[in-house]
Each structure stands twice: as C-alpha cells, then as structure tokens.
C-alpha cells in the first residue's frame, strides 16, 4: 500500500459513520500522526470518552478493520521512513526527532488498539506518550527538544511488557 493510499484509507475509516467513535478516532489520530506530524489533544479526549466500555463488543469486532495486515504494514513503512530519514548518516548516535516519534505512535495506536481499548499497561503507556507529544506541540513549538524525562515513565512501562525475559 502506497503512502497516498494509506492516508486515504485512514481518512475513509475516520469518516465512516458506521464505525464506533473509538475506531474512527484511532484512525484519525494515526493519520494525523503519520501524515501531519501532529497529535491533537482533542482527539485523545475523544478517545478517552470512547473507551467507556459502552460499545465494547462492537469495538472488538472492528479491530479486524484496524488490524488488516496490509494496513498495519503500511503504517509501519510510513513511520519507519520518517525514522530512517531522521537517523544521522554515520549512525553513531540515534537521534529521535519529533516527527519520527509521533509517526511511531501513529503506527503503535493502531497496532495495539486492543490494548488501548482495554486500558492495559501498554494501552495506557501509548496514550500517555501521545498526550506528552500533543502537549509538547502546543506548549513548546516545533523543533524544540522534548525534556527527555517526560517520556521515560511510559517508555519504561512499554519496555517491561515487550522485553524478552530469558532466565
């Protein structure tokens, strides 16, 4: 799936009035993060309001729409393109830019939509990271470095979940 087609697909899903607010809001957050480099606080508020569990069975059924392999693979490719571009050519240090961090969240919110839906540690950490980025965009303006300790809590929570625990 090409980037233009991915942006269209996410827009169509975000506009589909048949879908729950949860699914539509997630697609909107993902599209804006990937293609506009922004996360809006209002979108996160909509999402929080949508995860009250009142429409849970429909939301769970809709996960199959968000989890189409070609859709998720395309969001990953789009997000990685920004990450790769952001990496210095000598690769001696990995410097993360705002757009690459936000694009990564654009992939993560869809790929882990089930965790956001149930409010698991993964879901809560991703939403907290999105909130930090959204706040940063409003308060600090683009290009200014993010205080690094802001993200350390939720990232540490995420790492705990994904880390491979060998004996």
């Amino acid at each position: 799936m090409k980037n233009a087609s991915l942006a269209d697909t996410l827009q169509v899903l975000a506009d589909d009035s048949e879908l729950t607010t949860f699914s539509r809001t997630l697609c909107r957050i993902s599209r804006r993060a990937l293609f506009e480099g922004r996360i809006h606080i209002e979108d996160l508020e909509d999402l929080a309001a949508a995860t009250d569990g009142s429409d849970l069975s429909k939301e769970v059924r809709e996960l199959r729409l968000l989890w189409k392999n070609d859709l998720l693979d395309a969001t990953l490719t789009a997000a990685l393109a920004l990450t790769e571009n952001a990496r210095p050519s000598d690769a001696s240090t990995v410097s993360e830019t705002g757009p690459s961090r936000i694009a990564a969240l654009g992939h993560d919110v869809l790929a882990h939509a089930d965790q956001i839906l149930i409010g698991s540690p993964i879901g809560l950490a991703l939403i907290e990271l999105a909130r930090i980025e959204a706040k940063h965009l409003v308060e600090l303006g683009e290009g200014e470095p993010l205080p690094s300790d802001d993200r350390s809590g939720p990232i540490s929570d995420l790492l705990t979940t994904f880390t491979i625990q060998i004996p």
Partner: protein
Amino acid sequence: MSIKVSGLVAAWIEGLQPHRVAAAFEGLTDLEDVSRRYLHDTEGTEFEGLGWHSLTLTRDGPFVDLEFHYKDILFTTDCRRERVIVILHQRVSLTVLTAWRTDPSTLLGSTAITLPPMTLSDSSSEKGVTSLILTVENRDIA
C-alpha cells in the same frame, strides 16, 4: 580446532549449574564438522534447563550455530556473520523498537546471565511477524 558459538548462546549456557555447563559445551564441541543434530525436546539432553525447544545444532568448520525456540520466540545464530536473528510472532511497538535500538540491553530485560555486548542492527516486520537482527560477538569455547 577451536569451536566458536554466539556469545549470547555461550552466556545463556553459563547460566546453568556448573556440571551442566560443561556437558552443554561438550555437546557443542563434540559435533562433527558439516553435521547437524536435532533435539526435539531439551528434556534428558545436556541442554536441559535452558528452556529451549526444538533445538538444532549445525557445525560448519569452527562455527556451531544453534536454532531453537524459547517460548514462542525463534532464535537463530549465524556465527559466520556474528549475528543472532530473533523472530517474534507479534507486532512490536515502534516506540519500543526505537528504544531497543538506542539501548539494546533493554531487549532482553533483567536476567541472571551476564549478557555479551550486542547491537540491534536491523529489524523488519510483516504480517504481524517481527524479525530482529542482533550483532553479537562469537565466543571460543574450546
């Protein structure tokens, strides 16, 4: 001839009780050149206690490569290129992947094993399967 295995595998084996460490290293050095050994279950073998499943040993000159499952994660060593390929049957958060890239020690979490230095050299993900390529130095075990 000295036998080389991935530093990660050597470190993992060294986490065993001493008499088992010796037996497991012997199992690796005893393998004839250009041969394979399949162990469908670690029970009753010298590798018991490592938690590995479906273990395959392959010797090619001084290199002994291992392929095994740990839980549902597939590990494959490529000693010739000093690499370990890790296949996860899940989508990994890109935020987490970036953190792993910055500090690869967080990939394997807290463990009793003294992990060798490693870098996450590459990763790819398709259809919900994530492959990680780690660069890990070899170890001479005999």
